[in-house]
């Protein structure tokens, strides 16, 4: 579903952001991406939703290959995945439901189908009562839920979350994390970059640790090794 093969990413000014990264994320998996600031987590996620393309190596996401990809292919790929960020990226002059509907309108979704899908997405994140609120009238946790609803409204196969709880307090963090778990439980894969090691420790999900542009730890490997040893 998501496959990195010996991926290098180099920026002209800052140099090498990723080196020789290979990984595979299966359908329906929940993966944490951890590591210090500047380790390359965001770059790795950007390569996943093809905001960036590898300097060397190759990336496959849901059958779309980074090598030779067109802008149109990227647009099509993005319709199949959802992305959320630390800073929510909502449009301030539109209500919660308008923000979600926007994601459908810009991909020319049939007009009649939009209100139903928006209502379902809002219900999924528990914000039906705040449909007509503007972002500034919502708490940080609620704004992130709207962003998640927007990411979910197209039924993505994977939700990519770049520090989704970075701006939230403890309580809101727990709420948003629980929401991501629920989303994963219903079959959507989640790839979440985070600094919050508490969340990682308290759950049993796969953790990939990145440092200085390289994968330094992958709990899946440890688990596989253990399984091999047991066998």
């Amino acid at each position: 579903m998501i496959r990195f093969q010996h991926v290098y990413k180099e920026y002209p000014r800052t140099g090498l952001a990723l080196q020789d990264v290979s990984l595979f994320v299966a359908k329906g998996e929940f993966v944490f991406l951890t590591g210090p600031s500047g380790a390359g987590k965001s770059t790795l996620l950007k390569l996943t939703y093809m905001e960036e393309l590898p300097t060397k190596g190759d990336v496959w996401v849901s059958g779309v290959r980074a090598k030779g990809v067109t802008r149109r292919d990227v647009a099509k790929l993005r319709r199949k995945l959802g992305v959320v960020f630390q800073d929510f990226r909502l449009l301030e002059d539109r209500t919660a439901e308008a923000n979600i509907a926007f994601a459908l309108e810009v991909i020319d979704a049939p007009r009649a189908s939009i209100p139903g899908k928006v209502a379902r997405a809002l219900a999924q994140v528990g914000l039906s009562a705040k449909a007509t609120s503007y972002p500034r009238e919502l708490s940080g946790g609620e704004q992130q839920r709207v962003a998640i609803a927007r990411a979910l409204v197209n039924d993505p196969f994977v939700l990519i979350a770049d520090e989704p709880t970075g701006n939230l307090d403890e309580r809101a963090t727990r709420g948003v994390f629980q929401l991501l778990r629920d989303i994963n439980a219903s079959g959507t894969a989640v790839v979440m970059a985070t600094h919050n090691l508490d969340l990682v420790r308290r759950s049993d999900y796969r953790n990939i640790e990145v440092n200085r542009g390289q994968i330094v730890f992958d709990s899946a490997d440890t688990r596989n090794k253990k399984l091999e040893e047991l066998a």
Partner: protein
Amino acid sequence: MRLALRETMIGFRRAPVLSALSITTIAFSLFAFGLFSLVAVNIRKTLRDVESRVEIRAFLADGTPVEVVSAAMGDIGAFPEVSRVEYVSPDSALARARAELGEFKDVFESAFLPASIDVRLREGHRDPTTVRAIATRIKSFEFVDDVRYGEDWVDKLYRIRNIATATGVVLGLAFAAVAIIIIGATIRMAVLARSREISIMRLVGATDAFIRRPFLIEGFLKGILGGALALLLTWIASVVISRNFIQTEFFSRSLASLGLLGGALIGLLGSSLSVGRHLRKI
């Protein structure tokens, strides 16, 4: 399309001053062009009037028999370029001279003016080359003493017209370029002002064509509005000139719609040149 229109309107609403300013600037550059075109249109009209009076006058030798003259008139009348051939007898030449030069009428006492054949040319054949060619042919008749056709001012008229047309084209292109640059700059600002929306659109999978659409509509509308405003200003100018200086002719309906269409095209061109370049940076 509805969404694109709505996004365009949001763009206008969000930056009303900027939008008004860009429309006004476009209007002023098109207005300058409009004023020049107005002059050109009126010069052309005057030229047409003057041109219709272009004629060749062939003075006949004394004592040319009437039969010869009328046969020659038949021949000349059969030239495809000729619209009318008229015989002017010495008497009527005298009468005409007296009428045209009233204050000197006493000077013209006797029939000393030669008879002539006046030849008028069809429209489209009044350019200097044709006039000269016909004059030469007429001069080749034996009984024709001399031929006059106002060589100098036929040439001058045409030169003025050519200069007017060339200046119009050059100025038109220059102003169109200015308007395209202005629209490009306003679209650039609009793109930057909406970079957040654009990045979100990209994130959720909008295609480049979709993202570009509202900006193209914006440029198109600004071009049309600027064109309409320029047309209005030019019309006011033509009314003011007509009232206070000389009677002027305003653009015909088709020329006016051509102006609007020009504005729209300029807007579309300016925005499409700008939007692609700046979208890539977001």
